[in-house]
């Protein structure tokens, strides 16, 4: 069974690779490469998979999941400029794909335990663009 918890954070970013020219960055990232950044209301959905515990009836304690998401994602990223304030995005371009991969890396070790695993994360950059990262099969 899969359970999903949603969290939100607002952050700004610039998508540009410093190794490439401004023209090249504009060609690849469009307005996302504008140098002073712009913001999004990111919406994160995290799904955890496992069998409900026979005693508690829960796959995962949703309160604990909320605490993990707050500690690992919302507190460090909410109301921040990702490129300047949230490593590794000083080194890695904060596309939705890379932010989702980073979130996966941060929360997977906190979630996975016997019989329970992180199964999917979906990150909405806008209501019309989102990225899914799934557990490797």
């Amino acid at each position, binding site marked *: 069974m899969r359970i999903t918890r949603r969290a939100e954070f607002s952050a700004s970013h610039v*998508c540009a*690779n410093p190794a490439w020219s401004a023209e090249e960055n504009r060609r*690849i*990232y*469009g307005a996302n490469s504008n140098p002073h950044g712009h913001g999004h209301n990111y919406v994160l959905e995290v799904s955890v998979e496992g069998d409900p515990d026979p005693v508690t009836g829960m796959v995962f304690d949703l309160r604990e999941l909320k605490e993990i998401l707050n500690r690992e994602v919302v507190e460090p990223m909410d109301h921040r400029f990702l490129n300047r304030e949230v490593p590794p995005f000083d080194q*890695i*371009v*904060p*596309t*939705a*794909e*890379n932010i*989702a*991969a980073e979130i*996966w890396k941060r929360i997977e070790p906190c979630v996975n335990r016997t019989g329970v695993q992180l199964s999917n994360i979906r990150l909405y950059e806008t*209501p*019309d*663009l*989102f*990225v*899914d*990262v*799934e*557990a*490797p*099969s």
Partner: protein
Amino acid sequence: MRQAVRLTRRYRFAASHRLHALALSEEENRRLYGKCNNPYGHGHDYVLEVTVEGPVDESGQVADRTALDRLIQEHVLDRMDHRNLNADLAEFADHVPTTENLASVIEKSLCEHWTLPARLARLRISETDRNAFELEAAP
């Protein structure tokens, strides 16, 4: 770690259609499709989700959004937005434009013209907020 990454982009178009199967009688069509069979057609604000899947490239992206937008603009929106699906699309000259069939038509057209390194993984179309039609593209 090998991970499947999927990127989904949402598009909108407004179109009209009438559900009427040529092989069925007037009465059978009315019974089967109800109001969707009304003779002059009716419209929806369709929402189309296009999901692509692949490795994240050196730009940190599964797919170039501009290239994807261009593809959808040319092969879906320019053909379907503010159109009558029965009258304006050759594919529906003798096929019922149910949203199931619409999803297949869009999949076929996109596959024929696909230019992105990432593969087309899934299409999902809503006619209204209360329904959705989902098609997983063949791997």
